[in-house]
């Protein structure tokens, strides 16, 4: 291994080059957004089951105090992001594409920001892995790249190769970029920490070539922290192309291998974590910090103050809007996440979540999508752009005509909803929405199917039971009659009276038995 930094020789199929607009937010150093007067913390903000509230209305909570406990295997803890009083635990608008309400904990902050952290684990190398995993789970850390998958689960397996995802391919977003520029030393330590938990020999940091300053900062930090490169760090520079930051796309860019369909990167002996996640894991272990804040990009042409800010989880968007001095005259829409895969925030009183890496205050015509779409002319630009080598126009055709089994035949579920197809479509067709609709519908139908087959089983079982009962009843009648006959034979005709009595008794018995069941 000659040099730490190298440029990838591989590429993935498709991809697009949307306008980046990163310069809107990556010019200023990281700031603090502060504590809003009210926090609106969503209990279901991670992948998996929503957390169970463990505080009561009126309780005083400190920053870092557990307010929602994970339930089941795939879930995460939720903590108070600042000190204050629990105002209510109720259905509130949440940061979700549907714009619907769900269970939230609303905290009136007191401004003291009194905190309650966990005990730091200074020497993580010497403790049991399970202790570290428990700590990560306790701190409620999830993947901060956008998926919000509980990190403790992703740290569990032992693999040879750790890939740190620093590609940040979505336009507008620059929080990982700034983080690498400004906290490179700590980041390198953090990556070493994650690497030691996973037990990986190699570690590759995948980063797009439009972040030269971040690359330089990392190189410098590696030289400082690990002059002999004992951790086998490599920085793989990938070309700037959306979606190079997609998990499977980045793996192909770095290793040249494709993750087998319907499988995890684990199948190739690879685990991937986002840079910000690595930092959060490190801080949770060495400083005892639970996940109460994250770095978030505030951008968009309608915002006057743009940049990257440490933001408390649960910060309402309307408060951010005030802080960023957004010109509401020209504000068109507020988007959480990037323009390619994010969604529109419909109710501004909902709070940020752990996966809110960016808030875009877009002005009119900035992120405009045409409302009237023309018919598909099958030009195939979408198929060229698709990073998964699907045939988007076929998927669209079948999703639109609701021929879902045909859409599945065209591998609908391999679609990663990256939006490249919609982006290039000259007819402005909302392709991704068609796929999302079709996927939802297929899942619903298969649920119904499962329910139906369950009902059939129960019905068939019942029919069987009724038949068996009928047969048993007939059998009992027959036995009683036989017994009667036998008795009559034994006693002989002389004892006719007794026989009659026995007969009656047997009949009564049978009747008794019958009424029992």
């Amino acid at each position, binding site marked *: 291994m000659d040099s730490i930094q190298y440029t990838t020789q591989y590429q993935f199929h498709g991809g697009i080059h949307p306008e980046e607009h990163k310069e809107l937010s990556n010019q200023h150093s990281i700031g603090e957004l502060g504590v809003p007067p009210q926090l609106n913390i969503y209990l279901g903000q991670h992948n998996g089951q929503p957390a169970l509230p463990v505080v009561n209305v009126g309780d005083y909570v400190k920053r870092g105090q557990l307010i929602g406990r994970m339930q089941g295997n795939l879930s995460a803890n939720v903590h108070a992001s600042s000190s204050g009083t629990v105002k209510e635990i109720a259905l509130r608008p949440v940061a979700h594409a549907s714009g619907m309400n769900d269970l939230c904990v609303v905290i009136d902050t007191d401004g003291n920001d009194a905190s309650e952290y966990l005990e730091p684990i200074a020497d993580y190398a010497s403790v049991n892995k399970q202790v570290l995993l428990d700590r990560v789970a306790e701190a409620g850390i999830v993947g901060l790249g956008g998926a919000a998958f509980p990190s403790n689960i992703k740290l569990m397996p032992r693999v040879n190769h750790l890939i740190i995802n620093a590609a940040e391919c979505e336009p507008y977003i620059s929080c990982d970029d700034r983080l690498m520029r400004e906290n490179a030393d700590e980041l390198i330590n953090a990556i070493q920490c994650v690497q030691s938990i996973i037990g990986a020999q190699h570690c590759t940091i995948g980063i797009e070539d439009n972040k030269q300053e971040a690359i330089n900062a990392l190189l410098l930090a590696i030289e400082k922290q690990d002059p002999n490169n004992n951790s086998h760090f490599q920085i793989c520079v990938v070309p700037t192309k959306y979606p190079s930051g997609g998990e499977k796309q980045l793996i192909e860019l770095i290793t040249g291998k494709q993750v087998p369909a319907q499988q995890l990167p684990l199948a190739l002996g690879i685990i991937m974590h986002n840079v910000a996640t690595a930092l959060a894991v490190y801080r949770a272990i060495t400083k005892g910090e639970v996940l109460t804040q994250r770095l978030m990009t505030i951008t968009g042409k309608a915002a006057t103050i743009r940049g990257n800010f440490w933001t408390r989880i649960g910060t309402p968007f309307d408060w951010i809007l005030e802080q960023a001095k957004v010109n509401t005259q020209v504000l068109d829409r507020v988007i959480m996440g990037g323009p390619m895969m994010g969604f529109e925030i419909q109710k501004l009183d909902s709070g940020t979540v752990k996966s809110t890496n960016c808030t875009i205050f877009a002005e009119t015509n900035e992120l405009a999508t045409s409302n009237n779409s023309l018919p598909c002319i099958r030009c195939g630009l979408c198929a060229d752009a698709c990073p998964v080598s699907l045939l988007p126009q076929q998927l669209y*055709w079948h999703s639109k005509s609701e021929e879902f089994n045909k859409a599945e035949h065209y591998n609908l579920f391999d679609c990663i909803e990256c939006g490249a197809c919609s982006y290039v479509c000259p007819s402005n067709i909302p392709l991704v929405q068609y796929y999302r609709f079709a996927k939802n519908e297929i899942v619903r139908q298969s649920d119904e199917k499962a329910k139906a087959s369950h009902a059939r089983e129960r019905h068939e079982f019942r029919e069987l039971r009724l038949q068996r009962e009928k047969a048993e009843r007939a059998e009992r009648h027959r036995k009683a009659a036989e017994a009667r006959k036998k008795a009559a034979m034994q006693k002989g005709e002389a004892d006719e009276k007794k026989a009659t009595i026995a007969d009656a008794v047997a009949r009564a018995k049978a009747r008794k038995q019958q009424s029992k069941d």
Partner: protein
Amino acid sequence: MTNYFLLLVSTVLVNNFVLVKFLGLCPFMGVSNKVETAIGMSFATTFVLTLASACSYVVNEFLLTPLGLEYLRTLCFILVIAVVVQFTEMVIHKTSPVLYRVLGIFLPLITTNCAVLGVALLNVNEQHSFIESIVFGFGAAAGFSLVLVLFSAMRERINVADVPLPFRGAAIAMITAGLMSLAFMGFSGLVKIS
């Protein structure tokens, strides 16, 4: 050999039974809603047509002509065809129940498929030999199958197109068949059998 090849090309493309001679339109319209069905129907028709042209040749050559009963030709051919179709129906019912159900009424209808009788009668008219009869029958069926499968794939696409309501269904299918026929005109003159 070349002669058989030319005969085959001629029956499949140049004198396509459906698009040029307009025979066998009933199953062409009826069983072209889905590609899978069309492929099944193609196999069934190919089997029936080839077998029927062979059988009818035998019946014509060794029974009707020696006995001077040519006037019974149509009657006997229909008898032969009906038996072959019935036989095919039983085989399909046993081997592929879904296909059997999907082909539905069209399977027995092969009996009255004018293409089948047409092939048998044309064989006699053109004074084809036994091998030629079989090649002709097979070629006719292959041509029928080719356009049927192509047509069904097109219809699957057209069925979900934004066709104006008055043209939906059979109407647009007819127009499409007409345009296909137009395209097949391109093959005319391709093979000149003396």
